[in-house]
C-alpha cells in the first residue's frame, strides 16, 4: 500500500510511450497547466507518428506538431488564446504533415466521458449542423463509421441527434499541482477535462509540480480527483507546465510563450528551439537553470499563490522526494 510510483521522466516516456500510439495530454485549457515537459521528453526520445488527443492544443501539441512528431491530432481548439495562432501546429496542418480532426471544447470531454464509461457512442446535441459534423481530416477508414459524427435516433421522441465516437487514448500524461508518491492528485484551478481524461485513458502518468506527504491527501480527500488506483506512475517535475501557468504555483511566462511560438513558425526556428529548450537540459535541476532561477522566482510570485497556502506544510523538499523514488522506497 505504500509502494512509490515515483519514476524519472525519461523512464516514464520509455516505459509508457511508443511510436504510433494514441497519446493524450494538454489537459487544462489552451494555455493552462499541461504536462508540457512530457512532450519535450517525447521529442528527446525521438517518438514519431503520434496520434495526439488534446482537448486544446497547448504549447505541447504546438511543439510536437511543429517538430513533426505528431501526424494525427484531435482537438477542440488549436491555438494559444491571446498569444495567437499555434504556429507549429498551423505549419503542420497547412503543409499536410499532420491531419487535424476538429471537434469542439464540449465534444472532447464528452468523448472522454464516453470512453470512461465504455459507451459505444455519446449523444451529440452540439457540433451537429456545422461542418464539424461531417468533414473529416482523417481517412474514412480511420473512423469507426463512414461519417465522423453520424446520427442516432432517440427512441423516446423519434428525433435525430448526433453521435460522437468515444476516446480511450493509450496514455494520458496529466499535469497536476500536487500528488503523493502513489499518484493521489490534487489540481488547483479548473480541471478542464483532466477528471474525465484520467478515466478514459488506458493508462495515466501524473506529472506533478510538487510532491506532498500523504497527510495532505487524507486531510483533503475531496480534492483528490485522481485517485492512486488508476495511476501507473508519478513524475515529479517542478514548473512542468512552463511556459504555461499552473494556478497557485506560477504564472505564464509571457516572453517565452512568444519566443516559443515564433520559433515554431519555421522549420529552422523549431530546430533551434529543440536544440535549446528540448535537448538543452538533463534533469529537473538543469531544466530550471535553463529557464533561469530569477525568472522562475518572478513567475512564482503569482497573485494566485494564496491558493497553495493550505497545502504548503505537506510539500516535500527535493531531497525528500529523491529518497522516495520508486526503487528507493522502503516504508
Amino acid at each position, binding site marked *: 500500500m505504500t509502494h512509490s510510483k515515483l519514476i524519472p521522466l525519461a523512464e516514464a516516456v520509455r516505459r509508457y510511450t511508443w511510436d504510433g500510439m494514441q497519446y493524450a495530454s494538454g489537459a487544462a*485549457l489552451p494555455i493552462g497547466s499541461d504536462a508540457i515537459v512530457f512532450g519535450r521528453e517525447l521529442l528527446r526520445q525521438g517518438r514519431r507518428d503520434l496520434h495526439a488527443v488534446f482537448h*486544446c492544443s497547448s504549447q505541447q501539441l504546438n511543439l510536437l506538431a511543429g517538430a513533426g512528431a505528431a501526424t494525427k491530432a484531435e482537438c*477542440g*481548439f488549436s491555438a494559444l488564446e491571446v498569444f495567437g495562432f499555434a504556429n507549429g501546429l498551423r505549419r503542420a496542418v497547412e503543409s499536410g504533415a499532420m491531419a487535424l480532426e476538429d471537434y469542439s471544447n*464540449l465534444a472532447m470531454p464528452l468523448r472522454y466521458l464516453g470512453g470512461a464509461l465504455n459507451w459505444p457512442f455519446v449523444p451529440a446535441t*452540439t457540433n451537429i449542423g456545422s461542418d464539424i459534423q461531417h468533414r473529416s481530416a482523417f481517412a474514412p477508414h480511420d473512423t469507426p463509421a463512414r461519417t465522423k459524427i453520424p446520427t442516432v435516433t432517440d427512441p423516446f421522441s423519434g428525433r435525430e441527434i448526433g453521435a460522437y465516437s468515444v476516446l480511450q487514448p493509450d496514455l494520458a500524461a496529466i499535469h497536476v499541482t500536487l500528488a503523493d508518491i502513489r499518484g493521489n492528485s490534487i489540481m488547483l484551478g*479548473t480541471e478542464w477535462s483532466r477528471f474525465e481524461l484520467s478515466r478514459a485513458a488506458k493508462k495515466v502518468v501524473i506529472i506533478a509540480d510538487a510532491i506532498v506527504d500523504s497527510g495532505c491527501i487524507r486531510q483533503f480527500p475531496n480534492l483528490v480527483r485522481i485517485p492512486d488506483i488508476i495511476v501507473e506512475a508519478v513524475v515529479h517535475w517542478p514548473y512542468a507546465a512552463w511556459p504555461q501557468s499552473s494556478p497557485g504555483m506560477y504564472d505564464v511566462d509571457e516572453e517565452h510563450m512568444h519566443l516559443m511560438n515564433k520559433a515554431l513558425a519555421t522549420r529552422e526556428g523549431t530546430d533551434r528551439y529543440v536544440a535549446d529548450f528540448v535537448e538543452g537540459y538533463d534533469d529537473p535541476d538543469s531544466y530550471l537553470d535553463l529557464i533561469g532561477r530569477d525568472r522562475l522566482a518572478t513567475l512564482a510570485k503569482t497573485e494566485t499563490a494564496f491558493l497553495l497556502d493550505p497545502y504548503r506544510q505537506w510539500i516535500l523538499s527535493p531531497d525528500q522526494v529523491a529518497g522516495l523514488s520508486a526503487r528507493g522506497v522502503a516504508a
Partner: protein
Amino acid sequence: MSAPDFTRPDFTRQEMMAIATGREIRDGELAIFGVGLSMLAGYFAQAHHAPNVRAMTEGGVYGATPVGGLPWGIECNRLSVNATSFTSALDALGFLVASGRCDVGIIGAAQVDRFGNVNTTGIWDGEIGESYRPPKTRLPGAGGANDIACGAKRTVIMVTHEPKRFAEKVTYISSPGYLEGANARERYGFPGGGPAAIVTTLGILRPHVETKEFQLDSWFSFSSVEEIRANTGWDLKVAPDAHVVPEPTQAELAALRRVDQTGALRKKG
C-alpha cells in the same frame, strides 16, 4: 441605455465594439464569455450595468473578475485569482450552456456570413470539395463557440468589420448561426436561439425576424451606412429603423478601462 456623452471622449473602435457588446448583456443573466476581447466586453458589462451577471468561462471558472488586465486565457491566473468555484468544461459548456440554461454568450469570429454562421477553422482557396483537404490558412478551430452557438439562448458575435471577414457564405461553418436562414436551425433541435447581434468595429447587425438574414441595425458615430456596406461582403440590407449607436459615456469608458487594465482595446483602432 445611457445617454450619449457630448464631451466626446477619445475612444477606439475596439472600445466602442466592446462597449456595444457589453450593452447586450443584462443584469442577472447567466453569461459565458470567450477569451480575449469578448471577455473584456463581458466583464465591462459586469463592472458597469450588470453587477449581478452570473459570469463564467468555458473552463468552469465561476465568480471571478479579471485582475491585472486582459487574461491570457480562460484559466489565466488573472482570472483564477479570485474565483469562487473551479469545475470543468463539461460543467460549463455542457451542463450550463449546451443544455440551454445559459442566457447569453459572446463569441468571436474570423469570418461571419449573411446568416450569422461563423468560421474560425480555416481559410481555403476555393471550395473545400467533397473530401477534406488542408486549409490554406489554419485558424484556431471551434473551441467552445460551437457549443455556445448551439446552446446559449442568444449569442453576440464580436468581429472586426473588414470585407474579408464578412462573407456571403463562409467556407466552413465552425459555429452555426441561422445556417441557410429562416427556421433552418430547427432541423437540429438546438436549445439556443441563435445570434441576436453581430457587433463590429463599425456598427451592429441584427437578424431579420423571419429570414434571419443579418441587416444593418445601427452604426457607430464615427462610421456610416456607406462605410459599413463597403466593408461587408454581401449586399447588406439596412433596417428601416436603422440608427446611430450612442457613444460611450464617461462611466462606460471608465468601467471598460478598469477592466482593460493593460489597454488591449486601445492598441489599434
